[in-house]
């Protein structure tokens, strides 16, 4: 997925690193020190609809050309996450217990057009 540059109008992944110190949460989140909060944004013109947004294969390139030449776009396509991974957190709960847990689908790794 292209990482968003300021002038990128098309669907891309916007990267943000969040440091828990910045949230004032380092007193209860022990590890890690922060995490990547990425999100997807950008235009999804018809010929990009349904494209995986990662390494588009020859098939999807041809498919895109067909769609681009199709005068009747098939409705709206959105820029959405296509790959996400869990985040392992170590934190103190309200009783002072240490809890280690994996939060599923926390980090967006790739975006694409629905």
């Amino acid at each position, binding site marked *: 997925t292209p990482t968003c540059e300021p002038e990128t109008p098309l669907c891309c992944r916007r990267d943000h690193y969040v440091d828990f110190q910045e949230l004032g949460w380092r007193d209860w989140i022990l590890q890690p020190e922060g995490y990547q909060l990425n*999100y997807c*944004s950008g*235009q999804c013109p018809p010929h990009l609809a349904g494209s995986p947004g990662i390494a588009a294969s020859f098939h999807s390139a041809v498919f895109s050309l067909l769609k681009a030449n199709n005068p009747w776009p098939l409705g709206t396509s959105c820029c959405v996450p296509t790959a996400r991974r869990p985040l392992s957190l170590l934190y103190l709960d309200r009783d002072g217990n240490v809890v*280690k847990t994996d939060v599923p689908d926390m980090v967006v790794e790739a975006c694409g057009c629905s």
Partner: protein
Amino acid sequence: QGAGSGCPNCGGPTLAPQAERALVLELAKQQILEGLHLTSRPRITHPPPQAALARALRRLQPRSVPTADGDEVISFATVADSTSACSSVLTFDLSTAQPHQLSRARLWLHARPAPPGSLYLRVFRRRPSGGQRGARTLLAEQHLPAAGWHALALPSGGLRAKESAVLKLQLKCRLLPGNRTSAQQPRRQRLLDTAGDRRPFLQLQIWPREPGAGRARRR
């Protein structure tokens, strides 16, 4: 909202960097609280001592091993009713660890250097209501041959409780005579550490929250 586009994030007015950063931080707070099934961040009133925390964290699985079977919890004991360490009652507050979802439990204890002979330890579960002898269940018994840290595996079934998330464990230990007669057994010597950096703690493995997720993940 992009002009005329059907979805909220297909382009639209870009935010000023400070406004975007503030929005991202708010989003991060929401995302983490939702991911941990919390409504607000926990207020830590009694954080465990750093040294005890560091030692306990070394017992957790290495971070490279994702906890496929749900969460791991380390709960430090608060000690009450102890005339001597060998008849202490350890109290653990497991309200957030949902004791009924336990899959594995180990009690970590630090034995002090003792006169020759090994320490014989029994661990009972005390019902929260029960003060009388009857309301307790033997969970584990073990020789502790030397000073240092020891882990006692506890039957997770014996720890599950629906009536209360406060778990009370009673320790009963005595010194098995080595080359000294038991008559010389030191009456008042503390044989186990029960406070400070070497206080006992429970290491628990909790089934994942959504039913069946652990099995799906293992598959």
